[in-house]
């Protein structure tokens, strides 16, 4: 086990950072926008091969997840997860991009739909590949910091390419990994941004960052960002559906706390577009409910570990008792292991 980036991974990320550094500030005409999709950055990532990790020998899903997390640190948004991580795990075809992910109601606004060329749609027992016609999409106004669009007329699904039932589980799994990786980059940046702010902002003759009430909650936000990062990377590395669900579940269940605390400490400034905080917070806010949200991922974990609801139930027993049985000792069922130890009462 080695949780530091290796040389190739470090080079990949520092090359990406040097591109992202040109996008840390928004173009002045978009400075006060609620979101800004950078076609220019999108093109840079595509042409420089940052979306190809999964298909590149010597690289893989982990490198793709690192790219997703890092790209999310920029205030501009750009579609990385579906192109770099999800699509390559379900099809060999190189799909026109940006790619929008759709599960559920086609009539609702979808993240990235107004910039997308392809939609991947989860219809329960299949994944459909839908060519998106720009003329059939209208932009939707939102405070989420991603572009959103809606189909004017629902696309004809009979014309869509079908990837088959086998694509459903990997689609969901890698969508969760991509979501967690993106949250990791967004969370880290939003925490750093707020830490910088409370170091400067003065109230009652001192900086906000000296107050323990502020420090402790920021320390917890940092913990959440750090855990999300390593969970996402482990899930990308292992390709294990349990890890994917754990990463998404952890990230999504903590988004409410991060949104609350980070906005709280940026005060009134934090709710202005000019202050930039929302470019990160209202992206993770948008991710909070995707793929069924924290509960959806939690149910997936429960199904994987303890069997689906319909399955016949065979009670599991702790290792201790199993071993006792194997060794021929008295098998103890719950409730029998009572010991009247006066010292314990």
């Amino acid at each position, binding site marked *: 086990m080695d949780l530091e980036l290796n040389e190739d991974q470090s080079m990949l990320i520092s090359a990406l950072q040097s591109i992202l550094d040109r996008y840390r500030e928004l173009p002045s005409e978009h400075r006060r926008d609620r979101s800004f999709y950078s076609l220019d950055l999108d093109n840079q990532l595509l042409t420089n091969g940052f979306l190809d990790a999964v298909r590149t020998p010597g690289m893989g899903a982990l490198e793709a997840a690192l790219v997703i997390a890092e790209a999310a640190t920029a205030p501009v948004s750009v579609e990385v997860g579906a192109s770099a991580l999800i699509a390559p795990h379900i099809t060999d075809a190189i799909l026109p991009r940006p790619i929008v992910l759709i599960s559920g109601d086609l009539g609702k606004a979808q993240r990235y739909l107004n910039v997308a060329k392809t939609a991947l749609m989860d219809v329960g027992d299949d994944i459909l590949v839908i060519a998106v016609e720009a003329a059939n999409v209208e932009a939707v106004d939102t405070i989420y910091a991603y572009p959103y669009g809606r189909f004017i007329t629902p696309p004809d699904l009979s014309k869509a390419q079908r990837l088959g039932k086998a694509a459903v589980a990997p689609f969901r799994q890698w969508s969760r990994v991509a979501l967690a990786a993106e949250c990791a980059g967004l969370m880290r940046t939003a925490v750093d941004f707020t830490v910088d702010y409370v170091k400067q902002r003065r109230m009652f003759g001192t900086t906000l960052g000296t107050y323990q009430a502020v420090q402790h909650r920021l320390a917890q936000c940092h913990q959440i960002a750090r855990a999300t990062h390593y969970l996402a990377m482990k899930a990308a590395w292992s390709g294990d559906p349990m890890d994917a669900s754990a990463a998404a579940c952890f990230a999504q269940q903590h988004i409410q706390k991060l949104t609350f605390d980070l906005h709280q400490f940026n005060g009134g400034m934090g709710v202005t577009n000019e202050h930039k905080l929302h470019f990160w917070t209202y992206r993770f806010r948008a991710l909070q409910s995707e793929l069924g949200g924290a509960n959806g991922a939690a149910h997936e974990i429960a199904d994987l570990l303890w069997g689906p609801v319909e399955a016949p*139930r065979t009670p599991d*027993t702790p290792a201790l008792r199993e071993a006792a049985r194997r060794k021929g000792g008295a098998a103890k069922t719950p409730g029998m292991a009572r010991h009247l130890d006066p010292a314990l009462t």
Partner: protein
Amino acid sequence: MEFAWTESQQRYREQVATFLEDNLPDDWFDTYCHGLGSPQQIDYARIFCPKLAKAGLLTPQWPAEYGGRDGEPWEQFILAEELWSWGEPRGPQYMNVNWIGPALMRFGTAEQKAEHLSRIATGEVIWCQGFSEPQAGTDLAALQTKAERIGDHYLINGMKIWTSYSYKADWCFLLARTGPERKAISCFLVPMNSKGVSVVPFPGLPEYGHLNEVFFEDVEVPLGNLVGEEGKGWEVITYALSYERVGLPRYHWGRKVLDTAVAQLQAEGRFDDPMVRAHAGRIVSKFEAARVLTYLVVDQRVKRTPDTTDPNVQRITAADACCELMNFLMEYLPDCLSGGERYLELFYRHNIPATIAAGTYELQLDLIAQRGLTLPRGR
């Protein structure tokens, strides 16, 4: 970055698992059910640890000159994961291996190393940690127990509290004041059978064995039992606590406890409830977060990465997961604290102080904020 166990680490894990299968007695679960700090488990640890030592599994990561076999820090964690999943048959001896030994290797005299390290490495001895006092918990430097140098010995007077396992311990790793300045504190190795040492256990919520008062009345300790320099004990404690605070593999244990709770709910036909299932799934994600952060901390230790606050981050992540699991037990299986499944009760009671002992939750947050996020110390 990669998360794989090496072949030799896997072999090591299998070796530990086989050892446990072969050596734990049939009635081990009964012993375990008395609790980690119980007389039964501490007595059993005195039988079990020498066997573990003989198999080369008690102090694998220690240097060979001190009875180890120069193993990598990962081995200590694999060992801990396996042992905790069986209920930690080392009893209190995990402390010896984790931090008392390493502190003596760094600060002990040649005589202290010769006397104590070999006894720890052979699994024969029970230690306790005599740091906290009624008025010195989080603010440890406020401690009042005094050590006066008189001729060829120190005379120790004062009291300690919450001294886990002390009622059964052979030795105490004691902190006492040797001067009036706030941090004029020194470390001593005190035999618990010294004249003037008395231990009074008192009842409480955690499992038995943790809540004890230890009184020191004119206890004479030879000068040779001072660890490090007089008045420089703070350095020793900081070093020792950095080892202690990596923490226990609570994720491994917690996941097993959650499996047991789910099995019980399934057997009672109550695990189909979507709320219960979602709650259990969320807890898994928290334990997995604690697991991966523990691996991060071990990796940093292997690489001797300069101090980070990741151990503190790991501690609060594990504590959050434990609290959530305790909450799950209280919501759905409350009878585990009133005559129900003992395995669940032990987890609950053991973890009542998980956010208090060995550095409180708030202390961890202070450290993350001030050292990690470099927020200024203030109000």
